[in-house]
């Protein structure tokens, strides 16, 4: 009797294991297919439509329907918008992470944290809409410009990456042992001196991860950017002039680019570029972490 039951249980176990491993394998299959399809479609521009890689990466002339595929304006736009976002959102996020880990009393943290969670949950299209209807007119009034452009995009993006940077910074700071805080205080340091001279350096690798993940999030952001950037396919020359980014261009024109056209292939190439940048950043984190330990 026991033997029969045991057999059934073991059979059950083997079937379960099959499902478990298959589910895990799906992850591997998924990323492989994604990379594969994107690599194929993203390189069609080069080997099928005979556009050279340097012309694509560095050319500043873009006219999808007219056969000009210099993507430099979009690359520059993405980099600048992201750079601007991390310039604001990075220090601000670390500061608030510092606030949560060192300053905030329990009750304050308990009220503020759910608020940050709401910020995370707001869909990017809603951020874009707020940016378009609230921020852009504001910038227009203050700076006597159109209002859209890199300034607007940078601000919106910095807000969107804040929760990521805040929570990772806080985690990195909390991990620093309390004995270091005590040691610094016992040497006569003020709280700020302890924070700036001991805690932040000690948590630096974790803070770097926070910032890099913020960058990765910003560079992949599409909708919010598209609504406030202005979508002019020109090299960005000012924070207040309309510009364009890789993500915004893809979402803008993919619907119009005819299937099989070089235009569409160029957009796929931009998507491939985005994928490579995003994956590259994460690999950077992996290896930066490996080096530290």
């Amino acid at each position, binding site marked *: 009797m026991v033997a029969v039951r045991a057999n059934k*249980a*073991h059979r*059950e*176990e083997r079937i379960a*294991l099959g*499902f*478990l*491993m*298959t*589910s*895990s394998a*799906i*992850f*591997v299959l*998924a*990323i492989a*297919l*994604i990379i594969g*399809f*994107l690599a194929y479609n993203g390189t069609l521009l080069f080997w099928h439509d005979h556009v050279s890689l340097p012309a694509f990466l560095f050319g500043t002339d873009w006219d999808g329907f007219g056969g000009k595929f210099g993507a430099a304006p979009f690359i520059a736009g993405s980099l600048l918008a992201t750079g601007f976002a991390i310039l604001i959102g990075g220090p601000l996020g670390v500061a*608030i992470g510092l*606030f949560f880990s060192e300053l905030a009393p329990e009750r304050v943290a308990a009220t*503020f944290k*759910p*608020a940050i*969670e*709401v*910020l995370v*949950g*707001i*869909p*990017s*299209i*809603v951020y874009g*809409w*707020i940016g*378009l*209807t609230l921020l852009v007119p504001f910038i227009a009034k203050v700076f006597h410009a159109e209002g859209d452009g890199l300034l607007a995009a940078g601000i919106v993006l910095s807000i969107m990456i*804040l929760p990521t940077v805040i929570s990772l910074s806080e985690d990195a700071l909390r991990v620093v042992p309390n004995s270091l805080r005590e040691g610094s205080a016992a040497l006569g340091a*003020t*709280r*700020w*001196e302890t*924070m700036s001279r001991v805690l932040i350096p000690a948590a630096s690798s974790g803070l770097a991860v926070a910032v890099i993940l913020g960058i*990765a999030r910003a560079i*992949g*952001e*599409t909708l919010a950017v598209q*609504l406030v950037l202005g979508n002019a396919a020109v090299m960005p020359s000012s924070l207040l002039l309309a510009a364009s980014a890789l*993500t915004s261009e*893809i*979402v803008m024109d*993919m619907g119009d680019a005819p*299937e099989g056209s070089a235009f569409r292939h160029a957009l796929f190439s931009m998507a491939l570029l*985005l*994928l490579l940048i*995003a*994956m590259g*950043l*994460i690999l950077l984190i992996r290896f930066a972490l490996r080096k530290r330990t």
Partner: protein
Amino acid sequence: MASAIAGAPPVNSFSESHARGRRLVDSIATVMLWAAAISVIGMLILFVVYLFVQGASAISWHFLVGYPSAADAGGGVGPEIFNSFYVLILTLIFTVPISVLAGVYLQEYAGPGRFRELVQFSAESLATVPSIVMGLFGLIVFVSLFHWHFTALGGALTLTLLNLPTMMRVTQEALSGVPATYREASMALGATKWQTVLRAILPSAIGPLTTGVVLVSGRIFGETAALIFTAGASVSYGASAYDFNPFHTAETLAVHLYSTQREALVPDAAQIANGSALVLLVMVLIFNVTARLVGRQLTLRFTGKAP
């Protein structure tokens, strides 16, 4: 500093005025950190108030259930809201089982080794794929290669790929919160690993697991970039708009906000957009609150302990 203790002879070689400066810096730093935190909270309040003020006038029963209009004012977003939920459910049907099983495998079964590393690495890499890129993958495979054109199913499968890593992480975290003693006790009673997982571990992890699922659902509900080119951004009109067929176009509310503000064909496009934005915000709040409440309740029920 020596003279901060009044009357004591200065023993150290450092000056006193420097101490005052340091105290000042410390106070300024404290104020600035508080200001940073408060400003972010203030910003959130600003956004919420703004969306309510702008969108409240658009909300009406007709808006919430009525059909969108092709050219006239007064359209609603009923089908779009329906589609948002429909696509969400479809997505969860695929995402939850796969992620939970994979999470269980990694957390409970897999020993260190190449397969485990590979799966972990794949999940991390999958998590880095930007949503627009995932949308394009969906376009390539489901829309073009499979010739489905825009479908709810295509959108759901794309969203599944997008959310697999997050859901797996949720599972792993929920499982790691289960005390080792549960496993040991179950195995000591002669249960197989799978029986242990199914009957002892998963039930006690149900709280954090559900919280995670509901929170991720909130993100899925608001997803746009991955759906525009897979589930479609076109609006169907008339009775066919409320549609359970997964092989039909399914513009969700978030995508509708995008297409409305972009095309602005109807005269009240701005108002529809405002209303849609408000509905999206309210849904996010509902998901957030529900996630916490449900998680707490389930943990109480299944483990008898408060979380």
